[in-house]
Every structure is written in C-alpha cells, then in structure tokens.
C-alpha cells in the first residue's frame, strides 16, 4: 500500500473517533504543528487530532497502537526542549479542547481540571476563592496545565513553594494501549500502589496521556513585597543569598541578572538600571505584612553586609512592579539583540551559582558568543541565554559547543542538565552522562512497561 493510501485510511479512522472537523491533514496545518517553542527542531506529522474527552483520547491511542503510528501529545506548544516536536511523524494529539476547570474546592483545597486549561486560568480560578496555585512558569499565560505536569514545570516561586510535582495529587491518564487509569486523587496522604502520578509528572508525554488532573492548592498569601540590590560581582550576590537563607528566611523570590542581562534590559526598557553593576539581585517575600517588612529588611541587611553597592525596598505596589520588570524584561531584552535565541536551564546547587556563571562567561568569550545569564538564585536554576544570527551557521555550531561545556560543568558541580525545561530532543544526548547507563536502561524498561509498542512520543525519554 502506498504512503498516501495509508495516510488516507488513518485519517478516516481518526475522523471516526473525534469527528471530521477535529482532524487536520492539510499541509499548512501539519506545518504549524511541526514545531514548538524550541528553535532549530522540527518534524512533520501526518495528522493533527483534537480530542474532546478521555474516551476519544483512548480511541486515538488504541488506533495508533494497532497501526504502530507515533503519537505526540501537546498543549499550547511552549516546550523549550522540543518535547512536542513530532520528529518521527505520526499523530499530533492536541489537548486544548479539553479546557474545563471542573472544580475548585475550598474544603478539600484542590482544583480538578482538564489538561488543556491554561495555567494562568487555573491560577485565576483558585485566586477567585482566595486560594493559590503556586507554580508560575514564565509561559503560564499560554502554557497548559497538562503540559506543565508532563514537564514538571518550575517557576519563580520554587524555593518557597516547590514545583509542579509538589501540587499533583491525582491524575487520570490514558495508557498508550488505550486503558484509562487513575492514580491518587483528592488526598494528601495516599500510599496505595506505586506513586504513578509522580512518575507521570515530568514523563514528557512518553508514558501516558493525562486527561484530568487534581491539583493541590494553598491559601493565598495576604500580601507580597519586593526589594533589589546591586553588587559589584555575582559572587557577592551569591554570598548574600546564602546569608539570607542561613538566617532562617524562606523568601518567595530570589532572582538575579548578570552584567550582560542588566545592560541588555537597560538598553531595551530604559528603567534606570545601574549598568556598572556586576549583578542585580531581586528579592521578595509574601505572607503577613509584618513578616514581609521584617524579612525584606533582613534581606536588605544581608545584601549590604555582603557588599551591595545599593539596596532598595519597594514602598508601593508600583515600585515593586518596577523592580520585577527588570527580571521580566530579561528574556525580551536579550531576544531582541539577535534573530536566534537559545534559552537553556542548566541548574546547580545554589552555593555554586557564582562559579557556574563565571564559567558561562568564560565559555561565551572563548566561543565568541553573547550569552546573558539570569535565573532563580534561590534554587540555582540558571537561564544562560545565547543570542545569535541564524544565518551565521558557524555561530549555531559554536553555541552547541559552548552549551556542551556548560552542561558538563553543571554536572561536575552536582547540578543537572535541565532544571525545568525537560529532556525532549534537545538534551537527550546528555541524559546518560548525568544518569549513567544503568539508570537509562531502567527508564527504558519503565517506558516499555507502559508502552510496549513505543508509540507515545518516540525517540525521546525512555526510547
């Protein structure tokens, strides 16, 4: 049978499951689902399918499993490691039609929702009843909760509140062979069986397709406050962070920008940053107003003690917003310097941040690259961001070489190749270096137990 005939048969079968208007096979549509937010990576799917229920997802997976067709689940496609790129073709399974927040319970402190709900929408639904869904990845306005759980997304509040995995209480998921399972539920304590909901969180769409999520919520803090400090050098800022944490404070925000980022942000946003500084530390606390005031004061003190050249505490929400704008503008400012932006997320223990950032600068100079680093000083999650001209092919190769060195160095410092973006396609070749051969072999056996025919997001984690 010809490839075209196979495709047509597949299309007909998919249309029977989800309805004709929810299958796209036109070349233009296929093209727009061939990429995600990762530069330089792309595939070419054979069909894009938009199911509306767990049963429809199961129908699509059974069909794909019978025919051994790859299936790549996807939400809004904001992935930064090419995790939703259909590199082996097949079906892109888009879950954005499943977009209902089914319940927000103040009594049980949970939200129950479908995977296609945008993370910000979920956060707003929780906020409407005085609750907080803490994980706040940079893409929260666009990204879906299903994608966040599949990638175990982080965010700016991770030091104090943890990451997505700390909020997944229960999942309903469809196995690649078509069965629908549930793991966990509305309970904080539940040890019946292996913790599959945790296994699925961060499984990057390679084990099962999640069709409903039960997420833990916490009471919303009363208020929040912010401050900032300039340091001559990032090492000084890092010592200030250590001093803050040693003093018994757990801040909600500890973000930093390096010298390159400060310059880029000021050139772009003109918000009056001190471009002579070596590092900018942004600190924040939430909770009771009295506690906020005390903690901000202590963090300012710790900064001064460690050599901050100037320290400022925001007196008003507007002033706080100005401070946060410096951090928010980091990626936009860097990305405007050149057409191609490579955003990475190597992560090290927070005590090694200064060492790591110095190394990144040294590597950038050696490879003649412009790399700015910003990130989460509280949890060691760095975002070294290389900006380059896509037309200069040499630059892409040099950037890859530089990041190879950066990942290797992160591992030497007891860090990880990815703090929150995931393995996807981009980091797969570094995975064994971090985990070792035995560990990777175990991942493959787990993958095979879920997905005997290897149809779900093949060529990535566990393949």
């Amino acid at each position: 049978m010809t490839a075209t005939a196979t495709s047509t048969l597949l299309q007909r079968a998919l249309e029977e499951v989800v309805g004709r208007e929810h299958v796209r096979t036109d070349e233009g549509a296929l093209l727009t689902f061939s990429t995600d937010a990762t530069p330089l990576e792309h595939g070419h799917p054979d069909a894009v399918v938009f199911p509306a229920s767990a049963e429809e997802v199961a129908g699509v997976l059974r069909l794909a499993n019978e025919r051994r067709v790859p299936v790549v689940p996807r939400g809004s496609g904001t992935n930064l490691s090419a995790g939703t790129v259909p590199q082996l073709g097949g079906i892109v399974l888009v879950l954005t039609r499943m977009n209902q927040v089914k319940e927000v319970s103040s009594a049980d402190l949970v939200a129950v929702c479908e995977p296609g709900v945008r993370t910000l929408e979920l956060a707003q639904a929780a906020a409407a009843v005085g609750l907080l869904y803490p994980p706040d990845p940079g893409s929260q306005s666009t990204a879906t909760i299903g994608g966040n759980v599949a990638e175990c997304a982080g965010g700016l509040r991770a030091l104090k509140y943890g990451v997505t995995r700390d909020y997944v209480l229960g999942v309903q998921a469809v196995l690649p062979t078509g069965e629908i399972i549930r793991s966990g539920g509305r309970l904080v304590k539940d040890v019946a069986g292996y913790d599959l909901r945790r296994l699925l969180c961060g499984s990057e769409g390679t084990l099962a397709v999640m069709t409903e999520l039960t997420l833990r919520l916490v009471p919303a803090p009363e208020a929040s406050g912010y401050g900032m400090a300039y340091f001559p050098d990032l090492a000084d800022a890092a010592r200030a962070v250590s001093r803050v944490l040693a003093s018994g404070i757990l801040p909600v925000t500890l973000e930093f920008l390096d010298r390159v980022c400060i310059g880029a942000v000021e050139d772009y946003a003109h918000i009056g940053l001190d471009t002579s500084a070596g590092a900018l530390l942004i600190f924040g606390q939430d909770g009771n107003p009295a506690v906020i005031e005390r903690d901000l004061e202590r963090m300012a003190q710790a900064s001064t003690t460690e050599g901050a050249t100037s320290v400022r505490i925001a007196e008003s929400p507007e002033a706080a917003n100005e401070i946060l704008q410096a951090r928010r503008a980091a990626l936009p400012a860097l990305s405007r310097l050149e057409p191609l932006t490579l955003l990475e997320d190597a992560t090290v223990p927070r005590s090694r941040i200064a060492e790591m950032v110095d190394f990144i600068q040294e590597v950038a100079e050696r490879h003649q690259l412009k790399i700015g680093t910003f990130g989460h000083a509280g949890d060691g999650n760095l975002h070294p961001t290389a900006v380059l001209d896509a037309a200069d092919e040499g630059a892409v190769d040099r950037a890859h070489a530089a990041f190879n060195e950066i990942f290797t160095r992160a591992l030497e410092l007891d860090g990880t190749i990815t703090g929150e973006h995931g393995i996807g396609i981009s980091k797969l070749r570094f995975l064994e270096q971090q985990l070792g051969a035995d560990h990777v072999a175990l991942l493959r056996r787990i993958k095979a137990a879920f997905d005997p025919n290897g149809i779900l997001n093949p060529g990535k984690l566990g393949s």
Partner: protein
Amino acid sequence: MSTVDITPHDLPERRSVFTPELLDRCISCGFCLPACPTYALTGVETSSPRGRINLMRALETGVLPDDDPTVNEESSFCLGCRACEPVCPAGVQYGALLEEWRDHLWNGRRRPWNVKPLLWAVDSPSRVRAMGIVRRHAGRSREAPGPVNLMLGCFERVLYPRVSRDARKLAPELAAPSAQGCCGALHAHNGELERGRELARDLGAALPGTIVTTSGGCGAHLAGVLGAARVQQFPQWWLAREPPADGATADGAAVADGAGAGTPAARRLRIGLQDSCHLRNGLGVWREPRELIARIGEYVELPSAAACCGAAGSYSVVRPKDSARVLDPHLDEIAAADLDVIVVVNAGCYRQLQQGVKRRGLRTRVVHIAELLAGER
C-alpha cells in the same frame, strides 16, 4: 512515517516576499496565542499569530506555494487586530508582516471579490469627497488647512458625519478642508501596500501640520507612514489640549443629564468602551478614552473591551460570518452589563456594534467618543 525537513533553516534561499528583519524576529514562544481572537475561536495553532508566521516562513522559503489553500485561508481569516503585538516579548511587528503577506497573495485575482468595490470607492480623493457631499460632516470645501487639521475619514464622513462635526464643535480651531482623501489603511490592509502608503502621503500633503484623527485604524496607518509626530488621536489630543479639572465637568453635560436617553437625571450613565485595535495595539492609546468617559459617567470596563469586535476594517464585509462570531461575546457582555452607552473610537467598530446592538434589540446606544464629549444624542 515521513521525516521531511520543512523549516526555513534548511532552505536558506528567500523569495523576498517578506522583510527578513520582520520575519526573523519571532522566537516561537507562543505568548501571542491567548491574545489572538481567531485562536480563541478555533483553538488551532494554524489560526494563531505564531502559526501564521510559520506559514509566512514556509511561503518565504517556497516550502508552501502561493496557492496553498491553508496559506490563503489564514491570510484572510486573520483579523489584523494586532492584539499579538503588545504581548510579544520579541517585538514582532505582526501588522507589518500581515500587510506584506496580503500584498503578495492578494495582488490580482486572489483578492476577496467583495473588498474590491470598497477599495475602488476610496482610491481617489474626488470620489471620497463625492461620497460625503450629501452628508453634513465637518468639512468645508474652500477651507485652507491650518496648523492642526481634522481628518474626515472616507467611510466615516459618509456613515457618521456627526463625529467630525462634534469634534469640531468641541475644538473650533481644528481645520477641516474637505479636499482630503482616504488615508489608505484599507488599501494597505487588503493587499495594496504601496497604494496605501501613497494615499497616506497624499493626505499628509493635503493636510500639512498635525493631523487629528477620530478613527484608530486610520490613525495607526497614517502614523506608520507619516511618522507618529504628525498624527494625533482625538482622545489623546483632546486630553492634552484641554485645561484639566474645572472645565472637565462641562463635557457631555447633555448626555450626563440623560437627555434623549430616557433616564432619570440623577442617575449617572453606565458607559462602556470598545477599544479600537490599532489605536490600542498599534499606538498604545487606551487610557485616554477611559479617562474621558469617567468624567462623564460611570465607566464600566467590559471583559473584552480590549479585544477586537470583529469589524477589523473590511473584515466584516469580507467574512461576515466570522466577524459575527467575534462580535458575539462583546454583545453578551454589553447585555449583561446593561450599559446605557457603549463608546467607540473607530468608524468600523461604530458600524459593527451599531448593527450588533440593533440585531440583539439591546437598549444600549453606540456613541463615538467625540459625540459623547460634545454631549449630543
């Protein structure tokens, strides 16, 4: 399964359909998706700004041909509202890309048939002038341009002549020679980019000095061609012109008293606003009309005030069904808020909302900001 490589990076040859700096800007982060009305309607990436930029890239590199049905459908389905621009971290000028896209695709037979008569009507200043001749707009035929001139618009002077009349009533120093043509926005947005720019330059020559516009769509196009320094939007200009505080309450006294509205004089009117997309997303003017409305009545911010109403220039003519789908949630909100008045700042939105409100039988009146300030109706 196939593994055909199809992104631009593999095919560096360009066809020069698009300005490279504009097309290369997008970093594919997807932050534009929740801002896009057609993505909200469909939930399909292909009908989002990022999806459309990927289609443009495929067109640019020849991966998809000019007659690809999806490429053509999406170039037309896009409202051109530019809501994707303010939320874009990389500063993509999507509106400019859309103009280049349509300029390439729609030149000749692929232009939607129903937009052709519109373009013809406004293509020459004398035709525009003739269209307005029976209407009592603010224009004077022998008047010489002054330091600050009021743009009369093309369709606005025919459909809503009171807008320019009220603007002039408020600010008699505005000169309004009727020997002025169309600004060219309609051309630029419908595949005749160069003609659109030419018309803007002609209008700039006919009205030397500052041009004050009462339509966001025209204002943004003029500012793009003539430079932002030459063009002022009426709400913005009026706020800067007027003495603040004391004189403010005089605005719209008649409306505030409930004249013609059948409301008790004591009750403050509940007034909403429909932003003009290009005024807000193209020129960043959105606080000003809100501030002006709040002086006259109780300002009610509708959830979709900033989102496109579906008029989108000629969109309501070219794609009436989609235009109505985009409008529907706005009408729901106007009905739910039980507004006395919904204010518009663009001629296209005026027509769109007026027809919608009438179709639904709502009691809300549609009023241009100049009319509201002049206190008529």
